[in-house]
Structures are given as C-alpha cells and as structure tokens.
C-alpha cells in the first residue's frame, strides 16, 4: 500500500499548498528578541530624516517593524543641506520623528545645540532600549550621563583587496608593513604598475593607512593630545613618524598618482575602478565599501569577470594593522515627535544586536555592536587583537588637528611639501 501512502501525502501536500498561509519570514519574535509594547493596531507615521540618498537597510527594518505594527507608516526622507536644515526641521511644522546625527555634530555641540535640545534621552530605562549591545567605546554620553544619540554604523579605514588576483599571482595578503611592501614589489614585478590605488582628491589618498597609525602613536600620550588639540606648533613633531611613513611608502613607487587622480570621487569611481579587476589593493573607507555590493551588477567588467574581494586594515607596523573604530552615524529621537512613543518603540526594536547587525550587513558597514558579526567582507577586521582597536570617540582628537594631519599627510604623499615643512607648519595656519 505504498502507493496509497504516497497518494495521501501528495493530496495532503496539495491541500496544504492550496490552503496554507504564507510563511512569515525573518520574524525576530521567533527568537524572543522583540515583544511589542504598544497596541499593535496603532496607526501613525514615523519619519526618519537624514542625508543618505538611499537607505535600503533602514527600509528593510521598516518592513520588519511592520510585521509587529502593520498600520505604522515609516518613511525615510533625505533633507537637503542636512547639517543646517535638521535643526530647523526639528522645530518645524513637519518635524521628523527620528533623525541622523554625526560625530562632528557631537564635537561641535554648541553649533548643534538644537539637536541636543530636541533629542530624547535614549538611556531612559523606561524606554527599554538595550544600549548594552553597543560597544562602550562608541557610546556617547553627555555630562548628565544621557544618551541623546545611538550609534547605528561604525566607520573605519582600510583597503579593498582583490583576493583572486593575489591568489592568481601567488601573493600573500599582507598583515605587516614589510609584508605590504613585499607584496607590492611582487605585484609590480607581475606587471601591476600601481599595486595600490586610492582616491587622491580631497586629501584622502594614504589616510586609511596613516590616520590609524597616527592615532595609535598618540592614544596613550595625554600631553601630546592636549598639545595637538590646542594646535601648539611644537605638537607638529607628533606627526613626524606618520609623515615619514608616508614618504617611505610613496618613495617605493607602489602608488601611481596619475592613475589615482583619475578617480573623481571617493565613491562610485573608486568602486568601479576596483571592479575593473586589475587593482590589487584600493585604499578606501567603510562608507565606500558599503556601496560595493550594489555596484557589482553595474560594472560590466565585474559582471563579466567577477572576483572575490574583501576589506582589510592597512598594515602600517611590523606588529600589524590598526582598526580605527569611528562612529559613522547616530540616530536620535525627536522628543517633540507627535508619535514619540512609537518612535521610541522603533528605536527599541532597532537597537538590538540582531537588528543593528542585520542593518550593518545590509548596508555593508561596520556594526556598532559588541557582537561584531561582521559582513564577510570585513572579516579581516574581526581577526585583529582588541589591543589594535582604537575608538576615536575615546581618543578625543579634535577636528582641527585631525584636519591638519590629514592634509599634511596628503601633501607629503603627493610631494607638495616636505616632512619638515609639514611639521613646521602645524599650528601656524588655519
């Protein structure tokens, strides 16, 4: 009677297929993470404003949140001239419920006091937001211990590595500075005129290698930091080793500046050039890496000849690389929101390891969570020893010295000034 059993099974399958309910995908409640605290039938609109042109990762979270609150309309809106308009918007007639904030806004608190004034204290226990899932080094607290903004993404610097190319040329991906120079030599011999490339407009070029290196030099030197922040001219000496590293690397001829100058922006052109497949290493920031996945299909070269790639910290010492952990984006809740309870509920839903990691993976950014279940492309960062991680928030380097160091590195790298000139110029120009 096997046929009979098969027949019944087929009938049952057909009946279930015909009558069954659609499967609920990605249900966070299945793991018990999120339990709605408000009436599920609540109907309102939550508007998140920011300056991203596109934010698919957030839209995905909207969709997931709608599984719990189907009548809540969530919308992301890009504001023009965000840094300026957000303060106005927060007190306007169509004030957003949730808004973007950036480390620069935190540093320049006076300028953005309106943001701080409008921001809900997300550390309020009553809100139930799990801030414990965030790496402590990334969490900003004001003088009262309030948390006006929650980190959503972390930024870092490194290099995109064409793994297939390294494999093809039988070159090991470098983990130390000497391995880096050695790899570059091998690749040059293999015919790659510029083993490393990077965006050379806007003072970037070697920033992914030199900036973490510079931060590492001063992170335990309070006096140096104070002097640098105070823009004392003698503090320029703290830059010297970094600048000499730039000169040393550039003098080896591993970067073809002319080729780098063809990259007009540090986003699409950088990605698409890397996807051409003949660049072994492309200096970039995580923000740029976030655009790689979407652009794979837009690159004819990559579509025709796809290859495996990943994002690595740039080795700047013989002990290895540094992971400079920089906040990329904060979310704040407008305490004047017409739907404040639902805005806080959305933040409670979002600020969990699962959702922040999910969003970081979708955006291909670095998660701010303790559990760094990094996107595969960032795997190399996860392998670093915690001692090699530098939290910029904890470092306390202010914008002015930071900008100067960055500019000096770029100028030295491009041969526009000498190391001495750059050191001497610190604190003397605005």
């Amino acid at each position, binding site marked *: 009677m096997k046929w009979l059993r098969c027949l019944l099974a087929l009938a049952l399958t057909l*009946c279930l297929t015909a009558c069954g309910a659609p499967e609920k995908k990605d249900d966070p409640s299945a793991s018990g993470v999120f339990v709605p605290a408000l009436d599920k039938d609540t109907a309102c609109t939550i508007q998140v404003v920011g300056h991203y042109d596109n934010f698919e990762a957030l839209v995905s979270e909207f969709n997931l949140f709608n599984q719990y609150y189907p009548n809540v309309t969530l919308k992301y809106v890009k*504001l*023009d001239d965000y840094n300026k308009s957000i303060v*106005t918007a927060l007190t*306007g007639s169509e004030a957003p419920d949730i808004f973007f904030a950036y480390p620069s806004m935190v540093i320049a608190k006076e300028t953005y006091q309106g943001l701080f004034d409008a921001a809900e204290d997300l550390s309020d226990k009553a809100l139930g937001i799990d801030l414990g899932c965030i790496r402590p080094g990334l969490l900003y607290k004001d003088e009262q211990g309030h948390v006006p903004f929650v980190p959503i993404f972390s930024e870092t610097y490194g290099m995109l590595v064409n793994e297939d190319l390294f494999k093809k040329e039988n070159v090991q991906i470098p983990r130390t500075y000497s391995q880096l120079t050695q790899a570059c030599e091998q690749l040059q011999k293999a015919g790659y005129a510029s083993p490393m490339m990077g965006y050379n407009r806007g003072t970037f070029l070697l920033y992914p290698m030199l900036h973490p290196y510079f931060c590492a030099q001063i992170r335990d030197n309070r006096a140096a930091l104070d002097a640098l922040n105070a823009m004392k001219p003698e503090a320029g000496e703290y830059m010297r080793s970094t600048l000499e590293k730039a000169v040393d690397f550039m003098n080896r001829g591993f970067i073809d500046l002319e080729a780098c100058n063809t990259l007009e922006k540090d986003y699409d052109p950088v990605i698409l050039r890397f996807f051409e497949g003949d660049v072994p290493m492309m200096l970039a920031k995580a923000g740029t890496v976030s655009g790689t996945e979407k652009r794979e*299909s837009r690159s004819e070269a990559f579509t025709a000849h796809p290859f495996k790639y990943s994002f690595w910290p740039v080795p700047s010492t013989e002990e290895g690389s540094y992971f400079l952990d920089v906040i990329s984006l904060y979310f704040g809740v407008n305490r004047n929101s017409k739907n404040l309870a639902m805005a806080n509920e959305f933040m409670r839903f979002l600020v969990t390891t699962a959702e922040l990691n999910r969003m970081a993976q979708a955006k291909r950014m670095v998660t701010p969570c303790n559990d760094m279940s990094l996107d595969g492309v960032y795997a190399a960062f996860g392998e670093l020893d915690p001692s090699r991680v530098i939290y910029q928030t904890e470092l306390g380097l202010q914008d002015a010295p930071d900008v100067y160091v960055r500019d000096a590195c770029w100028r030295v790298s491009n041969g526009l000034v000498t190391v001495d000139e750059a050191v001497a110029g610190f604190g003397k120009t605005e």
Partner: protein
Amino acid sequence: MRKGLIILGNVLIVLAILTFVVLYAGNEQRRLLASRTDAFENMTVAMEHVTTNYLVGEQRVCDSWANHINATGMTGQEAIDFVRTSVTSPSIMVHLLYTDGDTLAGYTTTAASGRPEDFTVSYGRINLFPQGVDAFFNAGNTVNVTRAYTNPVNAVQSIAFCRPVTLTEADGQTRPAVLLRIIPVSVFVEEWVFPTDEYEEAEISLLDDNGDYIISGRSFTNSNFFEFYQSYNQTAPDTRERLHSELAGASGSLEMNNSRGERCVIAHTRVNSTDDWLIVTLIPLSSLGRFTMDWHLVGIIAGGLLLLLLLDFLIMLQFNRRLKVAADAAEQANRAKTDFLSTMSHDIRTPMNAIIGLTTIAGRNVEDPATVRESLHKINLASNHLLTLINDILDISKVESGKLNLSPVTFSLAECAENLVNISQPMVKEKNIDFNFRISRIEHEYLYADQLRINQIFINLLSNAIKYTEPRGRVCVDLREEPGTAPDRVKLTYVVADTGMGMSPEFMERMYQPFSRQTDSRVNTIQGTGLGLAITKQMVDLMHGTIDCRSALGEGTTFTVVLEIPIADRKTEQMTLPEGTRVLIADDDPVLLETAMDTLQSLGARAQAVGTSAGAVEQAVRAKEQGDPFQVVILDWKMPDMDGIRAAEQIRSAVGPEVPILLISAYDQSDLEEAAQQAGISGFISKPLFRSTLYDKISELLGQAREHADQEEDDTDIAGMNILVAEDNDINWEIISMLLQMHGITSERAENGQLAVDRMARAREGEFNLIFMDIQMPVLNGIDATRAIRALPDPRAAGIPIIAMTADAFSENIAECLAAGMNGHIAKPIDMKLVLKELRRIRESEKRKEGFAP
C-alpha cells in the same frame, strides 16, 4: 493490464486535469491581470491629466504674480511684499531669489523660525537647479516646478513653481531673479491620490528625466527611481539605460519587486505639461490579481480528484478481492466437478456393472428359470439404485447451481404420511424393524408447499434410518403440528429416531457435504449415494426450515426437521360422524390415545380410551351391560397384556358379532389378515391415525363411507381404457404399450406432438380416455401439443386428461406441464404403480362425471 499501469494511468489523468486547471486558471489570471494592468495604466494616464491640471493651475498663479512684478518694475522688497499679500494659504511660501550671484539668495514671505525679523533666504547648499537656472527655464516646459527639496526656511519638504522675474533696484538697475511659489509636498500629496477605492494600495510618484523623485510615494524608496529598481531587482550594467529608455517612451507598464520583495506593477506616463517629467504609479501585483486565481477551487478540485482516485483504487481493490474470491470459488468448483465426475463414474459404474453382468448371466441361463428370476430380481435392485442415484445427482446439481425452485401445491399430509409408510414398509418388514409412526395434534391436513421436496426430505431421513438400523432395531417417526409465526402457517416438526449404528462426531461435521459417507465396515455393505443428506439439508434450507441431528456411535440417530408451511386454502371436507357415535379405542401408547381421543371427539364421537386389551374387553362388556354399547371398537394389535386379535375374540364372544372391530395394524396387515378374519375383525386401520383415516374407516363400518377397496391387484376398473401415447422414442413406446397391455389397457402411438394433436382432432367421442404426453419430441413438443389440444374446438377432445410422461423430472418441469394444461406428471423411468394410480384417479373422475351427467 497490470495494477501498476492502471494506477499510473489514473495518476497521470489526475495530474493532467490538475495541470489543465492550473494552466487554465493561470491563463485566466494572466488575461485578467493584463486587463487590470491596462485599467491601471489608464488610471495612471487619468492621473496625469489631474496632475497636469493641478500643476498648470498652480503655475498660472505663479506666472500672474511674476507678470505683475515684471510689469510694474518692483524692487525685491516690493515684490516680496506684493506676493506676501497675495498668498492666501499659510502653508504656501514665496521666495524671490536673485540669480545673478554665485549663490541663490533673496527674500522670503515667511521668516525663519527663531528669527522673526529675518526675511532673507539662501539656497547656497541646495542644488535646486542642477543644470542652472537658465537651462531650467529654457527647457520650454509649460510648468516649471522644482523637485521636492527641503525648504531652507522651515526645513519642510516642498516643491516650487518657478517663473523668472526682473527686479528693479533702487538705483534703477535691473537684476534677474526667480519667483518660487512653494507648496509643501504634504499639501500636494493630500490632493494627489487615486480617485477610486479600487486602487487603495496604489502609490504615485513624480519623476524627472533622471529618475529623481520630484514627489515620491511611500513605497518608492531611495532618492531615485532607477536606484529603487536596482536595489531590489536583478540588474545588469545596462539596466539603468534600458529602464530610462522604456520610461522615456510611450505610456506603459513593467513589473518589479519593491523593498518588501512584493511583485509590483509599475505604470508610467509622461506629464505633457513638463515634457521630461513622468508619473509613475505602483501597485502590488497581488492587489491587482488577488481576485483571479481561486486556489481554494484548485485545491478542492485537486482534493476531489484525489478522493475520486482513491475511491477508484479502493473499488478496484474491492473488485479484485471479489474476483479473487470468485476465481478461488471457480477453482474449487472445478475441483469439485472433477471429484464429482470421479465419484459419479464410480457410483454409476457399480450398479451398471451389476445390471450388465446379471443380464449376461440371465442370458446364458435362459433355460434355468430360478437363475433368471434371481438375476432379474438383482437387476431390478441395481436399476432402482441407479435411478435413485441419477435422481439424487440431478437434484444436487440443481441445488448447487442455485436453479432449484420450489413449486408449491396443495397436498395432503395424510397422503404424504401414508406414502412414507408404504415406501418404508418393505424394508421395515425385511429387517424386522420395530417401526412406529406417530402424529400429534395434526389440525391441518392440507398444506401448501412443494410436496415433492417435502416427501424427499421425509423419505430421505426415514430411509436412512431404516437402512442404517440393524435388524430388529427400532425406528420412530413423530410428526407434530404447532402454531406457526402467522395464523395462516403451521410449524411442522418431523422427527426420525433410530437405534442404528449412529455417526461419529467427525462425520457429523461433514455429513451434509455431497458424497459423504461414513467410513465403516458396516456402512460399506449398505447401498447409498452419499447425496441424500446433502439434498435434504439443501431442501430444508430452501424452505427456510431447520434440521438438527443428534447421534452417537452405536446408540442411534435422531434427526429433527422443523418447517413452517402455509396452510392450504382447501378446507378439510366436512367430516362428522353420526351424533353420539360410541367409539372405544385401546392402545398402550398414551400419545396415540390422547391424539386419537381428540380427533374422535372432534368428529362428533363419544369416545373412550383404554391402555390395555383387558381394559378394552372390560369396557366393551360394561357398555353392553349398561345398554350403551360401543358402535365401533378400535384395538391396537400389539398390546403388552394381550394382542388385539385375542382381545377382539373376547369382545366378540362377550358382546356379540354386531359391533365392528378395527385392528390398528403395524403398517402391514397382510400377515394378520387370516387370523383377524377368524377373530371377527371387521377391518384394519393403519397408523398414523389421521382425522381422515379414522373418519373414513369408521364411516365405512357405519355404512356411510366412501368405498375404498384395495384394488391394486384388481385391474378390472381400468381394463379397457384406451390411451393415446405421444412418444417419439420407439423403445419407450414399446415399453409403455407392453406395460399397459399387461393391465388390459389398449394404446395408440403418435410419434410427435403434432400427430397427437391431429389424432385428437379427429378422434371420436370417448375414443381415448387420456393421453400420455412425452415432452421433448420433434415437430411439436409436448407442452405446445397440450396447449394445441386444449385449444381444440371440440370440448370433449379439448378436455381429455393429459399426463406428462417425461424424463424432465424437476419440479419446474412439472409446474410447466401443469401450467400448459396437463393434469399430471409421471417421470421416466416409469413406475407402473404411479401410472396405475393415475389411471384409477382418472377413471374415478370419469365415473363421477358420468354419475353427474344428466
């Protein structure tokens, strides 16, 4: 065909039907979806008209202000004051921006929040005119409206209707500027909805030529429609170009996934008033198509078909099971047939061997009459056994083929019992068996049933009892009547008990199976077919009766048959003795005495019963002395104290010769006749004592009874009869004519039915007394010939008695003969006793007719 192939075929048919249903439904869905998509596209085009009208209307307001400013040569301040007074809605703002500087800056009708006195505005960080202001206005569009942007004054997402103006400075110089009539997107969107509920899930967006949203619906994520498409759909490097090319063409639609992974229909059409703008509408495919595919219906059809298939299979299995049973039965039947033929071959050959062998012996000893007589006697016995065997075979084959039908007729239970006694007497006498036949409470002598089959049942059981009882053994038959389940039925119980050899329990388990005979050295000497009990059981079952057997080896056997039989409509003729007739009856059997007393009293007699012969003598004497003598005395022959003949002698000597004395015989009185005559016995009366038996005998003695003489040996009553015999077979004709001749009866032959009809048609009145009609004859068979004779115009010829004389011996054959108009049936081979009986019956009937004749 193999079962697997049938199942596969069924499954394929079901799958084919389901495929057809799904394909058909899918096709219908596509057709309806296409229709709905067309309607949605049309709705989108309609929305374009609404949008155009709205945009043109707003643009006209902007243009009128600009025209007035240009015409009146206002300064910037004057112009802004003018439009401030012209704005009627608080949600609408106007900006006046100089376009000759590095950045767009100018005046606003509404001060920024927190700066109530500041009516200046700058668009320095808002790229409102990416191609430049001149390019914006030189596009030649009727409506000049910006993308949705963040109003720098209130940070509200807005669109702006633009018109270039020329402002006059205080020094008289003119400066180019642009007037922006700014409307919050939220205000626009409120009015910009689909007019019907049918598309409540539809959303609408306004795009510029680059795919950037001017206004975007909720589901249109990303900042650009192409980005939106590329984010959630499979793309290729040229996707953007292809999409752009498609949207730049005529109105139409395409499908794509939205951010939820839902399949959506995107309808698009150009906004005529702005050339490079597009209206793009989105609706989930499920919303357009949800009503078309009824998956429940498909599911029900699938379930129904599978159920049907399942049912089909179950029925097929059931049929297969039945077929297997039938095949097994057929195989068993075939085996049984082989066994049957084998047994038959043996059982028929045995008497045939005797007949042939003895015939040879007789032929060779023609000169020795003793040997010839002995051989003929044995041939007769073997022939009778062979006839019984053949009859039994025919019966059992009829029963087993299910073709045995009952042919009920009205019959006399008394005659039936008499027949039983007569048949059994020769063997009873031969084996000197103590035979006793008792009846009890027989109220209804005429019953309506298949007499032939009832006789068969009774005879089979009785003959078995006699056969298997040792000489000087005892066989008792009890026949009693009880009320049936309905008033018109009686329950007849027939019990045959013997003191024979009995049966083993093992044999009793299979005794009703054909050809079953007990394996016993004593049995082997007794002739039997082994069919009798099987036939009896089948007959009883057929009559819905029961048969029960109790037996023990060496102790005897008792068979009890219970049949429920309808009472015949024919009433027992009025039997009443002269009132007060004094009857004395003596028997040592109290049951017989009780039954006889009931019967006599019901006949109107004053009866008295005694259990001894001496008692009978005493009662007879006393009655005589009291002056109320018995008019009839009935004595049992076998009485313990004194036999009936001696008792009769004493009564005769005591009360004189007048009183008639009847002797209850032990069924065969021939041995007693001489002694009885000497003792003054008036006559014999045989057991069992039926009502009619008692009435007839007593009436006869009292001089009012019918005349009943034993005429078996006297042929004078039938001698001289002339019979027409319709018989095609020469030997059969010879036998019947010779046998009839032996009894002084003449006969004439007709070789077939037609000749018989013709002969009767020309027969003289009274030329033939009756016709013996064979059934299976050439030209015209006996049945049709009978019908033809009955249809003759001469009523005497047509009314002649016709007796079937045929080898077709089944009850349905008899019924057919009677139905055709015949008066009786005699089976071949001919039993001359039956023939003579029939002839006497007809002769008596003729006499009665003659007596009544005028």
